[in-house]
């Protein structure tokens, strides 16, 4: 499950790094117990994009557009820079999760005077 594996710290070499061994005084760490859930009761992950509204000048986007042009990427235009947020939800009901994420965006994650947002739940 993507939602669970994302919470473990990044490791290398088959899931157990040398640093992890050292930190536990030579005793290899055991794997976290796997959680089982009924099909359909999966925790949801929200992937949220926040960008400046169309029509509002995005100076960062403009600067990047010019840099792309200098590099020879003449076909790129209307570059918009935004934020990407990912979060796990305890909610398993998609409709309820949607209401929650929308409220998060309206209240905090986006400033709807200048920004617009979109999200996906999976």
């Amino acid at each position, binding site marked *: 499950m993507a939602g669970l594996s994302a919470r473990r710290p990044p490791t290398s070499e088959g899931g157990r790094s040398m640093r992890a061994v050292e930190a536990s005084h030579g005793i290899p760490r055991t794997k976290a117990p796997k959680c089982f859930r009924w099909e359909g009761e999966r925790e949801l992950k929200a992937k949220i994009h926040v960008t*400046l509204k169309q029509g*509002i*000048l995005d*100076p*960062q986007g403009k*600067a990047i557009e010019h840099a792309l042009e200098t590099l020879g990427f003449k076909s790129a235009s209307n570059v918009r820079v935004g*934020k990407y947020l990912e979060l796990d939800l305890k909610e398993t009901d998609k409709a309820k999760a949607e209401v929650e994420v929308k409220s998060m965006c309206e209240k*905090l*994650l986006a*400033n709807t*005077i*200048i920004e617009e947002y979109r999200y996906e739940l999976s």
Partner: protein
Amino acid sequence: MFPGSNCDHDCVHVLSNVLSQKVREVWHKETSLDGLDAVILPGGFSYGDYLRTGAIARFSPVMGAVKHFADHGGMVLGICNGFQILLEAGLLPGAMLRNRSLAFICKDVHVRVENAATPFTGRCESGQILRLPIAHAEGNYYTDPVTLAALQANAQIVFRYCTPDGNITPEANPNGSLDNIAGIRNAEGNVLGLMPHPERCAEEVLGNDDGRLIFLSMLDALKKARLHPKMVGAG
């Protein structure tokens, strides 16, 4: 004061040492502003400016008290990051975008007093030019055309960036701010936000004391309010 505020002591210094006022430093976790005559939200980088400037600070426990204080006519001044917090909290309309140049701009600018009949500008003449320092990366004020028209119609635009001789030109606009806006007040008149830092130029020894006019105006307004309660928000 929020974690990341860094102009709080400048404000305390001006008020207590220069203007001999009693100052209470209020930490962001406090929930009461009882006994205060006016509240100043200082500049800085509250909560590291994560997400957006002022976006996290507006949910600080103290902000509930600031809103309550403002709703009951209390005088609230937001400087720089304090202005950004007031915008995020909805105590003032609009939002801040990155500076047009993308650069953090730290320099003296000139602003024209557009409304001298506020509790924050009573010591100024209408049209007076002040030299004040700015230091910000997000001071590019934006709002929708309807709100802008309302700000203009109600004389809510208090300071605008101008040339040294008082002309409002695109060249005098340091950050791309809509209509050269440097500071606005709310419709009731008791909340003001501005990007320049009056607390950094409020004593002669610094070579510029234009900023002192704003603090002196506030003290005048408070004195008037004590004689005639409910006058604070007038103007």
